[in-house]
């Protein structure tokens, strides 16, 4: 029994401290920074006279463009390796997951290579967004009938 205990202790001494803490800290910093940039862009767009709703849509579009470009240049993966969920969860991750498989499979042609693979991750995301949106729509429609 004692032997097993001390063995566990020794293992603990030699394994690196949980990656969870470091991963989370990096995810927080990168995810936060991307949203901060988004908020700055939104402030700029609103200052330029764009309505608030459109400004935030434009922010997403801008970030999507930047991520797509950085994916093409091969910079995105280098950042994402450190940022983890920090770059995955913002729209940047969505844009990257659209471009990345499409570029990788370009050799298979523009139709079944780029055309099909561009939906590898975007497909499921859009599908489930529309599905859950429709479910909400049905519930909302029915509740409206009674209220």
């Amino acid at each position, binding site marked *: 029994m004692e032997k097993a205990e001390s063995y566990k202790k020794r293992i603990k001494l030699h394994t690196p401290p949980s990656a969870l803490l470091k*991963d989370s800290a990096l995810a927080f910093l990168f995810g936060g920074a991307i949203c901060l940039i988004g908020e700055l862009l939104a402030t700029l767009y609103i200052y330029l006279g764009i309505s608030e709703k459109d400004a935030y849509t434009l922010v*997403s579009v801008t970030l999507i463009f930047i991520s797509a470009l950085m994916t093409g240049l091969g910079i995105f993966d280098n950042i994402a390796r450190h940022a983890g969920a920090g770059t995955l*969860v913002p729209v940047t991750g969505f*844009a990257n997951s659209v471009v990345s498989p499409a570029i990788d499979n370009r050799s298979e042609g523009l139709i079944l290579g780029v055309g099909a693979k561009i939906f590898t*991750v975007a497909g499921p995301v859009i599908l489930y967004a529309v599905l859950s949106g429709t479910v*909400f729509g049905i519930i*909302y429609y029915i509740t409206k009938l009674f209220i």
Partner: protein
Amino acid sequence: MIDILRLLSAFVVGGLISVTAQVLIDLTRLTPARILVLFVCAGVFIGAIGLYDIIFEFAGAGISVPLIGFGATVADGVREAVDKEGLLGILKGPFTAAAAGCSASLVFGYLICLLFKGKPKKS
């Protein structure tokens, strides 16, 4: 002109959402694609119950930039379309709202594909 408090809340809220995803990845080994789907659906739910608007009020891009914002936009679009067009709005709403984000990803994605050739995979 620049609202420091709002910038700070955008940073913190966006950071916290990313940490939630990171913890899920590290502890449950969910793949990135599943995380994205999960967050979009969570966004639709948060948007549907009205929680999104409350957070957006003080955090702005902190909640709109994560994929949760994309989901919430879908919920918002559905609500608007059902109010305006009734039953048919259920089907029109989701895509109307998601249009800008989807089109931007696909169009920019395609253009980038044409401009850059994929690097041969290492390993």
